[in-house]
């Protein structure tokens, strides 16, 4: 579904991500793991068109999306939920969700589905997004992305600012979405959580892919265990 080949990108002419290649198959959940500053967010921003690239190519569902504007990529069914969520703070939960499927009108069945995935949002439809708790804001960010029935959902650090309990709840919701057939690409520092949902994973360090493989192999890899799981 998503093919990234030899992607290099960065800021102010200086590459932060170097020659990264990765793929995500339909219905798959793929994790990009790496510490803070490894280049995960930069890579994601480049894939979804928010950041220009200096080399490489990106294909989504066999269509070339390299250097396309972010709003065009979003309309093709690639939804990105950044770590800072990017909600519309002074709009209600309902309005945020409605904009998720812009420019189409809200499909009541889809809204019902999203509220089924995140029941707390149903009780806060008229509340402003800015007044929601961190966990609810994360639900709204993912819910908004789901409104357009994306084919690929990219999440950057979906557990940012969440308590361990809420983080686990967030991953349970993601697992449920995966079971529904949604393709997922998740950047995460909390490696055990990411690998609990992912089929495959890539380890990103200093902007380069250092390791890749099935999730269970990565979980067993001495390098990953040492660096991210706190196991000597």
């Amino acid at each position: 579904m998503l093919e990234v080949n030899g992607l290099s990108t960065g800021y102010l002419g200086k590459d932060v991500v170097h020659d990264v290649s990765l793929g995500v198959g339909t219905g798959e959940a793929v994790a990009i793991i790496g510490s803070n500053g490894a280049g995960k967010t930069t890579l994601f921003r480049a894939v979804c068109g928010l950041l220009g690239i200096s080399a490489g190519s990106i294909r989504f569902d066999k269509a070339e999306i390299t250097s396309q504007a972010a709003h065009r990529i979003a309309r093709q069914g690639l939804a990105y939920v950044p770590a800072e969520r990017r909600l519309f703070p002074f709009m209600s939960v309902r309005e945020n969700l409605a904009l998720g499927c812009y420019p189409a009108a809200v499909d009541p069945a889809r809204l019902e589905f999203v509220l089924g995935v995140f029941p707390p949002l149903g009780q806060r439809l008229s509340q402003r997004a800015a007044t929601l708790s961190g966990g609810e804001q994360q639900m709204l960010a993912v819910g908004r992305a789901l409104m357009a029935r994306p084919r690929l959902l990219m999440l950057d650090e979906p557990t940012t600012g969440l308590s361990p309990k809420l983080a686990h709840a967030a991953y349970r919701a993601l697992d449920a979405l995966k079971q529904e057939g949604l393709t997922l690409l998740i950047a995460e520092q909390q490696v055990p959580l990411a690998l609990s949902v992912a089929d495959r994973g890539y380890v990103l360090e200093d902007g380069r892919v250092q390791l890749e493989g099935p999730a269970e192999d990565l979980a067993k890899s001495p390098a990953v265990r040492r660096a991210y799981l706190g196991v000597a």
Partner: protein
Amino acid sequence: MTAVVLDGIVLGLQFGLLGVGLTLVYGLGGVLNLAHGQLAVVAAIAAALALGAGVPAGVAALGGVLMAGLVGLILDASLMRSVYRQPTEGRVLLGLLLTLGVSFVIAGFLVWQFPIEALSLNIGGGAVELLGVRMRRGSLLASAIALVAGGALLAFFRLSTLGRAVRSVIQDEEGAKLVGINPASIRTFIFVLSAILAGLVAITRSMTSPVPVTAGIDLTILALVVTVVGGLGSVPGAFVAGILLGIVNTVSSFYIGQYITSIVLLAAAALTIVLRPSGLLGQRP
């Protein structure tokens, strides 16, 4: 006193309509359009010329408003593109410089070509009594148009998908891109809408007093004051501030003198910046 306040509301509704356009353009792209008042004058002069050529008043007014919109579209497609390409800090400064330049060019051209032209729409008929005050029909029609336009704008921004998209770009441009909204086309749409609103103000204003070819800078300053007091980026704020400033304007003009009104208005803006920097209804696009 009632008469003065009513006159203030009539004036304030025009102020509100004038401020809305400026505040929206600023909220969307961080550009304070210093040519805003000149766009109103473009509409006024175009309508006055059409009237002079024997075109019926309604058609002339509509033509004037559309002419302002067209100039807005041309500005957006040319100069504003380079402004929006700049990062935020550069954008503010370049936006101010370019729109100030545009303002000089438009004013210079109009004064050169039509030095004594002014738009004055005479709405006939006798006075109408409202709350015991005899109001001119022109005042009432101007207020009705401003109220309808304001109500339509509020409904548009609250209820329509496109209106929500505009608010989303004001609140979080990157978030808007991520849901598939193109901020550049939203900005073009709002720049043109803002020019049309400026044109509409020229038309409604001319129903109560003439709008001369030199009115541009005064209208721009008024729009700036309304925008600052109402809160940058806030549509309801612009109308609330417009009405309040309209009342302040007529009351101070009536009890002190016309010469004091500009000072009072600017003082109101300064006071707002000190007491409530985000404006009356700031941060609520």
